[in-house]
């Protein structure tokens, strides 16, 4: 007989094993869905997960797509680890893009090495300003940061709409909702000729290294961990909770803002209404799939990035509806949450004769 027993302690091995299990289950469920839709499951999975990254260009696109996801998810892991539920990374990304785009537009007809650093810094500051709103409201007015940060996403998109339709729209652009193109000095340099992968990937890698250091080598990281386990304990230990809340939101906002900078000064080169296909929301899946661990997040961002690319390839070559990409993202999260059951419970084989 099999009995389900609660574990005394969550298993560390299972903790890192369940994301792999979730991806595996997603592949199986995806194959079944393809089969039901009338496609050959293995061929479809091949077009979804292998063909898009089979050449140099495809692989560079994977890194390009994973860069903002990784950067935002690293930022979010600071919040999530310390029990702060920042759902509004998309808004922080958008506001970061607005501020850095605004600065880039100021220099639209100028060249100079100093422009790019200012533009990048402006994006980080924009993201921080925007993230500080839910943080301050939470610490001083006890508001719910989930609601505030989420609602601010829509506000940021409306601000962007207003700017690109009105005051910032390209004077030569027949009033279409887009700004001028940025000058080359405001663009992140490309790493290879002919590929779109840009220097923004170094920002993401730097964030990975820094976060690893903070999480595991500093007192702040320890404080975050304790607050994550129990807010009461943190209070009892005398940690300055308010300061930490604001700090993790600022870090998270800066990362999201930088992701916005990467998009507009990287592949896009201007501001328009759609600077991000909801990277800020997808990064939440990435953060949890990566177990809030810096290295885990790298892998998770690659896995989630490929669902975007695969969906396009599968539609082009097999006429599979592109929205299956979103189904895959949803399934990964679903299976991850479901398999977390194994973290806290285990199956025990009991000899029924006893």
């Amino acid at each position, binding site marked *: 007989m099999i009995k389900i027993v609660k574990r005394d302690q969550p298993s560390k091995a299972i903790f890192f094993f369940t994301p792999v299990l979730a991806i595996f289950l997603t592949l199986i469920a995806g194959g079944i869905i393809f089969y039901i839709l009338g496609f050959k499951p293995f061929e479809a999975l091949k077009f979804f997960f292998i063909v898009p990254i089979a050449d140099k260009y495809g692989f560079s696109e994977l890194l390009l797509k994973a860069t903002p996801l990784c950067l935002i998810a690293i930022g979010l892991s600071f919040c999530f680890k310390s029990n702060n539920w920042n759902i509004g990374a998309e808004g922080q990304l958008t506001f970061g893009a607005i501020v850095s785009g605004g600065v880039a537009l100021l220099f639209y007809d100028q060249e100079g090495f100093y422009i790019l650093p200012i533009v990048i810094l402006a994006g980080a500051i924009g993201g921080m300003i925007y993230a500080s709103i839910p943080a301050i409201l939470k610490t001083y007015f006890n508001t719910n940061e989930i609601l505030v940060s989420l609602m601010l996403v829509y506000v940021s998109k409306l601000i962007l709409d207003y700017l690109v339709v009105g005051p910032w729209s390209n004077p030569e652009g027949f009033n279409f909702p*887009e700004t001028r193109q940025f000058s080359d000095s405001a663009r992140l340099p490309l790493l290879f000729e002919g590929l779109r992968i840009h220097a923004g990937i170094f920002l993401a890698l730097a964030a990975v290294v820094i976060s690893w250091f903070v999480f595991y080598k500093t007192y702040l990281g320890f404080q975050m961990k304790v607050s994550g386990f129990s807010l009461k304990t943190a209070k009892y230990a005398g940690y300055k909770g308010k300061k930490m809340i604001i700090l993790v939101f600022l870090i998270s906002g800066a990362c999201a803002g930088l992701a916005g900078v990467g998009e507009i000064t990287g*592949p*896009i080169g201007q501001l328009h209404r*759609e600077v991000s296909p909801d990277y800020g929301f997808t990064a939440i899946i990435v953060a949890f799939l990566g177990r809030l661990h810096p290295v885990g997040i790298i892998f998770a961002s690659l896995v989630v990035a490929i669902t975007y690319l695969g969906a396009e390839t599968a539609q*082009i070559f097999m006429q599979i509806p592109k929205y299956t990409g979103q189904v895959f993202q949803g399934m990964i999260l679903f299976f991850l949450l479901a398999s977390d059951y194994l973290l806290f419970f285990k199956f025990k084989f009991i000899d029924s004769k006893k």
Partner: protein
Amino acid sequence: MHKFLIRSFVSSLVLLFTLTVAAVAKDVKAAFVYIGPTGDHGWTYQHDVGRKAVEAAGFKTTYVEGVPESADAERVLRQLANSGHDIIFTTSFGYMNPTNKVAKEFPNVKFEHATGYKREHPNVATYAARFYEGRTILGTIAGTMTKSNVIGYVASFPIPEVIRGINSFTLAAQKVNPNIKTKIVWAFTWYDPGKEAEAAKALIDQGADVIAQHTDSTAIVQMAEKAGVYAFGQASDMDKFAPKAVLTSVENNWGPYYVDRVKAVANGTWNQKDTWHGIGDGMVVISGLDSQMPSDLQAKVKKLQADLASGKVHSFTGPIYDQKGNLMVAEGKTADDGMLAGMMTYVKGVEGDIPK
């Protein structure tokens, strides 16, 4: 013997010719990039109807739907150009810069961008429809059918395309009913059923008994049906979504153009151009007229349609005044395409200001 030789020579020539034509026709592959889902019953739906016409003409087609105007558009375009497509139609304004960028890298692939103005490389053409001609018809109907003399108009973005539509609509309505006022609500979206329905509700609450729309979902006609006011379908025939409310629809008919352009690639006659077709060329189609419209109105609309098609009537014929009473187009003159392309002022009779 000679006869036999000649005959076989001729017949083999004919055979060769047919084979080549067939081979060429089969070889050309067209791709379509869509902003929304093919089932939106509006903008993308109609482009997909056009794509099916290309298939029916014997060509292979591919499409990718729901492509955001973010950095992703460029990748999709490059992938399509890289995978053996000879002509790629990009059907949303936001694809303009990626289209031109990718076109530079693939000089042998033809690119057709809808509603844009940039043709930076010889292999980029642009196309759009003179929807304002259809709105002249809708204005005529609205001006006749309204009892409250307040006409509602749900608009998307304050760009010349939309302003032109509002003006064309209002001018036509004033012609049949000088007392009408056009009230505008800006939804700042092309497709958002929730927002569109709210906008329509706001207009109905302000006394509008005919609602026109320049957004793509069926939410507005459905809201009109519920409220018992009239409305017009946008992009596709929306009669089946609101049989009582919808008086007629202005349909976007891309099929003939798409077939034409793909055939031109097959024949090697494709050239760069900027196409702006209206009712006369069949790119703008008026759906069947609702039986609630009196028969003399129906006759009038039919005649107007024919006159717009032949060019006898122009949607923007002077005298046209702006909201402040300044003359925009002098008596007897018509607005030229340059003026239409950059139109950013309301005509007299439109209420409110253009959002800035």
